[in-house]
């Protein structure tokens, strides 16, 4: 079994190595036709077009050379335009590192890719995803035997470099962050990885794969492999098994397949489970317009999105706590609960981080709400989104800075990239505005709580250590108090790792949900007398 595990590890590492190396191979050859197609949509500067035709078209270039040339020429073109007496502003090419590469450079690089990978997409898919998935399944599958009888086996987690911020953890951290930076800001260097899933994309929606399709497919693949790990690790625990199955289903069906199939039928890409304000662009003008233009289906989506946020979410949180979403449905939660599970013990439980957490997460919620209000105001007042509204800012400015700071950096680069350093729910804990919204309901008006079992806690600290949300569960358990915290996502792991069976997730009556205790059960002190003393 040990051998099978190691074979799995090697296969999976080979898959990753090929995947990573592929970013540096292959060349681009921009044909006249490709160039004209691209240039007609993207540039108005004749200077740029002429120079680019000379320097780029028909040449064999690497993705890096091609990208830098485009940027160089764009800069030269801008200088040229600005040196004129009367500047033709529409001919200026706006260069911003977080936008230009993905919006301007990427389409040309994507369309002009040549080389072995382009010719052998199917085989390349097998060499990367195929090997990584197969290897991952063998690696985790072997644990069925290796872990011994079912039960909590967190053996060695704090002694292993990968799960205790050691060298392997740092390597994973750099890899994750690097990948997110490329995905969000420099997809022009990910052409080969994107091509690896081209076949899958074509068979689903008929479209060429994009970087977002690559991400969606990777997400599903990673979650599936790590869900197998969850099934084996927690095979004695039905709550974990059912929960993992459901969250995997929602990812694959609702976040991946249904939107792609909608696209295949010429409908808007739509994730039915993605609620505002997590889905912050739901009320943006372009989204509303695109939904309205799409007839009955689009109107249904619009109404569904509003009902989801205003009715379904609070009602469900009232009955079951926010866990029904965070740990059972949400994609971010899904990745955190599968890929992130090995890192859950790294989240900080200090009082200091709790203070930071409350300011940050509610700050993001306020920011998202203000942004949406402003967007809706400009939409209904029919103000163009790029027009200044106040303080020199337009609705578009606010939207794009939110998209950059929160949507890309916080939820992506930090939220997932920092798993190996800060634990697996950095985004959910510190940033997600939907979690903040549901948290408010959960804290003040919900039937959900984590019950503690009388006086049975031995303060061992397993619960707090394995709480991915950084809740100091033990501090409640040792007082015999129910845990009513807005950040609890109800993953159920505190209950699973408790060696004394002290914790249980319950949806009971609201009355008595908050139960501060003076003296613990087991000690027959006269409570009435104690109260009178006070």
């Amino acid at each position: 079994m040990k051998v099978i595990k190691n074979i799995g590890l090697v296969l999976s590492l080979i898959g990753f190595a090929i995947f990573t190396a592929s970013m540096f191979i292959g060349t681009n050859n921009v044909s006249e036709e490709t160039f004209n197609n691209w240039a007609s949509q993207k540039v108005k500067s004749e200077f740029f077009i002429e120079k680019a035709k000379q320097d780029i078209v028909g040449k064999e270039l690497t993705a890096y050379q091609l990208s830098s040339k485009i940027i160089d020429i764009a800069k030269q073109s801008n200088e040229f335009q600005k040196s004129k007496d009367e500047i033709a502003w529409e001919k200026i090419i706006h260069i911003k590192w977080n936008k230009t590469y993905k919006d301007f450079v990427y389409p040309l690089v994507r369309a002009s890719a040549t080389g072995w990978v382009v010719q052998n997409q199917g085989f390349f898919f097998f060499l990367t995803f195929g090997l990584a998935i197969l290897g991952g399944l063998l690696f985790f599958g072997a644990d069925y035997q290796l872990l011994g009888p079912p039960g909590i086996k967190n053996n060695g987690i704090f002694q292993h470099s990968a799960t205790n911020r050691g060298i392997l953890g740092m390597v994973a951290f750099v890899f994750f962050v690097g990948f997110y930076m490329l995905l969000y800001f420099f997809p022009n260097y990910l052409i080969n990885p994107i091509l690896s899933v081209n076949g899958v994309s074509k068979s689903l929606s008929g479209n060429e794969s994009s970087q977002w399709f690559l991400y969606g497919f990777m997400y599903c693949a990673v979650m599936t492999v790590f869900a197998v790990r969850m099934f084996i690790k927690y095979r004695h625990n039905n709550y974990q098994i059912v929960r993992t199955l459901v969250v995997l289903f929602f990812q694959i069906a609702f976040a991946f397949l249904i939107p792609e199939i909608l696209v295949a039928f010429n409908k808007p890409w739509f994730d039915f489970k993605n609620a505002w304000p997590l889905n912050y662009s739901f009320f943006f003008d372009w989204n509303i317009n695109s939904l309205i233009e799409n007839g009955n289906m689009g109107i249904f989506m619009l109404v569904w999105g509003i009902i989801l946020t205003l009715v379904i979410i609070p009602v469900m949180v009232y009955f079951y706590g926010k866990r029904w979403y965070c740990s059972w449905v949400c994609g971010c939660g899904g990745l955190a609960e599968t890929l992130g599970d090995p890192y859950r013990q790294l989240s900080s439980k200090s009082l200091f981080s709790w203070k930071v957490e409350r300011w940050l997460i509610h700050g993001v919620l306020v920011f998202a709400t203000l942004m949406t209000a402003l967007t809706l105001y400009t939409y209904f007042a029919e103000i163009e989104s790029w027009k200044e509204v106040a303080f020199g800012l337009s609705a578009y400015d606010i939207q794009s800075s939110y998209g950059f700071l929160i949507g890309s950096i916080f939820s992506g680069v930090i939220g997932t990239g920092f798993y190996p350093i800060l634990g697996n729910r950095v985004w959910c804990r510190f940033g997600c505005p939907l979690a903040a919204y549901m948290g408010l309901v959960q804290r003040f008006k919900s039937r959900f709580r984590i019950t503690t079992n009388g006086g049975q806690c031995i303060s061992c600290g397993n619960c707090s250590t394995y709480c991915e949300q950084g809740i100091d569960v033990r501090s409640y358990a040792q007082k015999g108090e129910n845990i009513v915290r807005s950040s609890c996502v109800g993953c159920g792991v505190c209950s699973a790792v408790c060696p004394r069976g002290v914790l249980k997730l319950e949806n009971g009556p609201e009355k008595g949900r908050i139960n501060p205790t003076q003296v613990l059960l087991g000690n027959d002190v006269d409570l009435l007398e104690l109260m009178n003393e006070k």
Partner: protein
Amino acid sequence: MEHIVIIGNGVSGVTAARHIRKLSDKKITIISSETSHFFSRTALMYIYMGHMKFENTKPYEDWFWSKNRIELKQARVASIDTKNKNLNLENSESFSYDKLIIAAGSKPNKFGWSGQDLNGVMGMYHKQDLESLEKYAPNNKVCKRAVIVGGGLIGIELAEMLHSRNIPVTFLVREKSFWNGVLPDQESEMINQEIIDNHIDLRLGVNLKEIKSDEKGQVKSIVIAETGEEIECNVVGLTAGVSPNIKFVKSSEIESNRGVLVNRSLETNIKDVYAIGDCAEQREAIGQRRPIEAVWYTGRMMGETVAQTICGNPTEYRPGHWFNSAKFIDIEYQTYGWVWAKPRENEARFFWKHKDGKKAIHLSFDKDSKEFIGINAFGIRMRHEFFDKVLTEKKSVIHVLQHLADANFDPEFYKQYEQEIISKFNKAHGTNIQAKKKSWKRIFSKA
């Protein structure tokens, strides 16, 4: 300001300190030589197993103590001068108190085996034991085999710890079955099986004769008394129970027996000196309890109680219904009320075990009145409040079985066994008990 000095920073002493601070403004000092901050002793095993770091076992962050004005002093007490209300520390400092709480805990038993002080022989009680284990048994290359002597809770925990690092373990148990002085035969047998299933070499009904040394003064092997068999090993864990750690009290005027003798208010024979936790011995046992109870929960309760007394609200130590819990490798155990290893005259018993061999319950009740006496639960979590209430209200075993769904504390989506348990009971006792559906109203209504 009155100065309260607490010897020992285990759960008893720290609970006392916290509650004194809640109730008063007194000066509080905790003296311990083991660690500078309170940690959960019960979690020591998880550090070795890699589930936690030492930091994770501290229930309070390090700033907690100064914020709550609880002074911590790392020192060892040599003797107590009760006349002058003074402590003599081993570093020959002297330290005065107004009120003294002795919460010094226990120390592992050693029965004068030859070789018991060799290198590589250790208990599993102090943080220092863990450091020593890390030194002598970091992996199965340094430690080819370990032998554990003593079949109790710490013994099986130590076995699980070593097993988690794939170190072969031989486990010597004096009784004919594991922890059979406390667990009835059926449960004890079930745990034997759990030990064997985890490939631990369990030897029942044997005693340690001697521990042999190599030329460097380190453990080489042990010899079993009954068979004369010699087992080579690099580590020996002595886990044959604990006894009160009160050597430093013996020279004082504080009266002691095995532990420091206390009355119901946890006072010793000397005014302003109290003893709590593992090291306290009740002059008269409370109910069916033993005079010394080295249990986490009772230590905590004594800490709560003594704090009341010291803060001007004289309170007797009145532990409620007995409860305890443990985990035997992968099997969780909880007990409420009394299930003696051997049934008493008036008792009838009902035992149910699931076919997977990992779940069982054992009920004890009065033969005639059917009054519920106690339950052992294995692999099924039970609700403390439920059994506390049932015992207080002296309900019958029939009531308990009817409401078993209310008592269940297993996580959601777990399989329930109430029907199976009840139908087995009905068959065995010719009754016709019907299980009631779980009711939140009953569960959360306070008596």
